């Protein structure tokens, strides 16, 4: 406030004063004040900002006086205000300003470009530092995330591109550590490399299709082998081939088995030459010894021969010169039907195939040959044993059958003899039994006849007795009937007499009752009259309890009389009821009071009561049976009825009043009601008495 006031003063005041004050006050503020001549608040932010902008000047304390060029500069910038306000032309001020303005006009432009440059530079610097810092932070984060696992999780999850960066770095590291792994992992082979397979590995260039065997051999096993070969493509071709051979050979032997069963001896003979050619390591003629060996078995031999010939023929030019092997022929035993032998043969054959494909057939040929011999011998022995046992069994069976036949014949003959003997005995026993039964039945029949006769006699006797009793009873009844007839004549007359006497007595008693009732009704009449008299005679109300008690006694529990007496209010007979004259007198008083309150409004105060009292004095009185619902006419009507002696109607009229009027006439109404009730009760009793007397007559 103080500043503003000062400023305003300065604006109004002359130049020197403003200049003097300017030293104390911030230049821009002063300038603004001079320029616009406006009042402004001390906390205007703009000048402060401008003052802060140059960073170099922040070193000086803010309290220090502003440098003189500044002041002059401001004055120079405010070249317009002197024109606007020519009233303040101080001599020294303008002189100084013109001088300083001339001097400082060149420096005046710098602030604006500097400001702009500064701003852009600052912006650039700011962005640069920001990017640098963020890059540094990112790099540091990546680096630290490789060290600390927790930080790695945090960094990869929350920092954008952090995960990729870390992953990339990790991959680089990994590649650096294992340079060969990448190619291995990918599984791709470099294009230039060639795969070399050793010659001894047994693989051949031939496709392991086995198409040549498809046409010639019709067994299912062959196909299976083909499929198996297809399945096991990964295996070396030789192995599949060898397997094929092993599969075909036993089959061939199985087919020949039946033929050879008749002559088991030549089989081993045929086999024997096999091992001998097998060990010969001749490369090409290997199949030649096989062919004569396999001659007895016509089917497999040609199969194997062509199978190997195509194998050899193109082979001449090819790199693999070695034949797969000169195989030991697999074993064919004629007794292969026996499971044990079969197992053995299989085993041996497996061994042979293994040996064949191992190329070690020369080594084991002798041993295998021996084993084959042994095996075939074992087969032969087993067959011999079988035949011997069969013959034995047949003989024994025949003997047993004969024994059974004999025993059966004997049994049949014995059974027949026993049956005939039994039959004769049964017949004898049956006859004896029949005779005995006839005798017993005869005796029973006789007994029954005798008993029936006795029964009939007894029945006849009983009937006779019953008739006698009936006759006696009838006689007694007849006698009694006659006696009673005689007696009834006299007894009936006696009863009539007694009834007549009784009726006479009743008549007499009835007359007595009639007389009594008459008396009672007379007394009732008298009592009622007494009550009435006591009511009407009296000049003043007087209790009539005694008369009423007498009346009640005479009535003797007559319900009508009792009810009538009960309807009279106790106050009436204890204090008596007022006479009509009294009622009329009181009515006059009540009417005067009611008239006073006739003009009262609904919620009346003192003033309305007073006015009603005064005005009621000047109301016109009505006469006779006036029409209308107002208090005056009601009162007039009631008075008329009273003068006629019609208490009932008067009471009805007064009952129609409301408000203060009704309240004032309440006691009078109650009195009238009492009188009316007593009168009504007496009338009822009188009527009842009259009815009683009528009843009697």
């Amino acid at each position: 406030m103080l500043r503003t006031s000062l400023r305003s003063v300065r604006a109004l005041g002359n130049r020197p004063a403003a200049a003097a004050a300017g030293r104390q006050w911030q230049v821009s503020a002063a300038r603004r004040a001079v320029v616009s001549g406006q009042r402004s608040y001390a906390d205007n932010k703009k000048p402060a900002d401008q003052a802060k902008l140059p960073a170099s000047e922040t070193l000086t304390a803010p309290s220090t006086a502003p440098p003189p060029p500044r002041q002059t500069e401001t004055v120079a910038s405010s070249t317009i205000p002197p024109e606007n306000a020519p009233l303040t032309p101080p001599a020294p001020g303008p002189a100084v300003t013109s001088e300083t303005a001339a001097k400082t006009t060149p420096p005046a432009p710098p602030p604006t470009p500097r400001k702009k440059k500064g701003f852009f530079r600052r912006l650039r610097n700011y962005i640069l530092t920001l990017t640098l810092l963020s890059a540094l932070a990112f790099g540091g984060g990546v680096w630290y995330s490789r060290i600390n696992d927790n930080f790695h999780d945090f960094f990869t999850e929350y920092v954008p591109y952090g995960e990729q960066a870390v992953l990339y770095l990790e991959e680089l590291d990994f590649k650096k550590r294992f340079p060969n792994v990448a190619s291995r992992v990918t599984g791709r082979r470099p294009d230039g490399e060639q795969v070399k397979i050793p010659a001894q590995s047994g693989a051949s260039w031939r496709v392991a299709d086995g198409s040549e065997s498809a046409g010639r051999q019709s067994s299912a096993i062959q196909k299976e082998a083909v499929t198996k070969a297809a399945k096991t493509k990964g295996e070396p071709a030789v192995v599949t081939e060898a397997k094929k051979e092993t599969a075909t050979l036993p089959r061939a032997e199985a087919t020949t088995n039946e033929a050879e069963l008749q002559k088991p001896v030549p089989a081993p003979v045929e086999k024997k030459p096999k091992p001998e050619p097998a060990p010969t390591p001749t490369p090409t003629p290997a199949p030649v010894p096989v062919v004569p060996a396999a001659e007895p078995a016509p089917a497999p031999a040609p199969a194997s021969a062509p199978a190997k010939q195509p194998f050899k023929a193109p082979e001449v030019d090819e790199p693999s010169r070695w034949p797969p092997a000169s195989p030991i022929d697999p074993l064919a035993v004629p007794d292969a039907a026996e499971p044990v032998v079969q197992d053995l043969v299989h085993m041996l054959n497996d061994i042979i195939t293994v040996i064949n494909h191992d190329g070690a057939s020369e080594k084991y040929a002798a041993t295998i040959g021996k084993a084959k011999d042994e095996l075939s011998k074992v087969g032969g022995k087993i067959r011999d044993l079988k035949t011997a046992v069969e013959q034995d069994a047949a003989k024994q069976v025949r003997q047993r059958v004969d024994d059974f036949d004999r025993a059966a014949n004997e049994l049949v003959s014995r059974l027949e003899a026993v049956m005939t003997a039994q039959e004769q005995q049964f017949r004898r026993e049956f006859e004896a039994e029949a005779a005995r039964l006839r005798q017993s039945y005869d005796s029973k029949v006789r007994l029954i006849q005798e008993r029936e006769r006795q029964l009939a006699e007894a029945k006849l006797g009983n009937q006779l007795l019953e008739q006698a009793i009936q006759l006696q009873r009838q006689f007694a009844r007849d006698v009694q009937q006659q006696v009673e007839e005689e007696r009834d004549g006299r007894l009936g007359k006696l009863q009539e007499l007694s009834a007549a006497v009784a009726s006479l007595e009743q008549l007499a008693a009835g007359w007595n009752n009639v007389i009594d009732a008459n008396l009672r009704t007379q007394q009732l009449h008298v009592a009622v009259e007494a009550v009435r008299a006591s009511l009407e005679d009296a000049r003043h109300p007087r209790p009539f309890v005694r008369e009423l008690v007498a009346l009640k006694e005479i009535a003797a529990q007559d319900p009508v009389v009792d009810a009538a007496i009960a309807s009279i209010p106790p106050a009436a007979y204890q204090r008596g009821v007022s006479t009509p004259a009294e009622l009329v007198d009181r009515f006059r008083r009540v009417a005067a009071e009611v008239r006073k309150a006739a003009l009262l409004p609904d919620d009346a105060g003192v003033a309305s009561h007073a006015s009603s009292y005064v005005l009621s004095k000047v109301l016109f009185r009505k006469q006779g049976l006036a029409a209308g619902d107002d208090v005056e006419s009601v009162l007039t009507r009631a008075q008329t009825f009273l003068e006629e002696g019609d208490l009932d109607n008067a009471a009805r009229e007064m009952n129609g009043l409301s408000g203060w009027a009704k309240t004032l006439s309440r006691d009078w109404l109650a009195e009238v009601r009492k009188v009316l009730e007593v009168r009504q009760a007496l009338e009822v009793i009188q009527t009842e008495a009259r009815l009683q007397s009528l009843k009697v007559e």
Partner: protein
Amino acid sequence: MAEPAPSRAVSRPVSEALLNEKWDRCLSNLIIKSTLGLGFGVVFSVLLFKRRAWPALVGVGFGAGRAYEECNYSLKQAARDIKKQA
């Protein structure tokens, strides 16, 4: 007549005399209250107001006004009771 009359007078007024009784009460109340007010007024006028007439008149006015208000209240109360009974 000699017998019931005293009992009635003791127990409660006859219905036609209800209004009259209220008036009697009001008048007596008026006299008492205005007398009291007059007394106070006189005392005040003597003690404080150099025996002027108006304090006494004011006292009477207060007393009478009070009495009037009470009377008004009692009458209205009675009217209300009547209405409630009806």
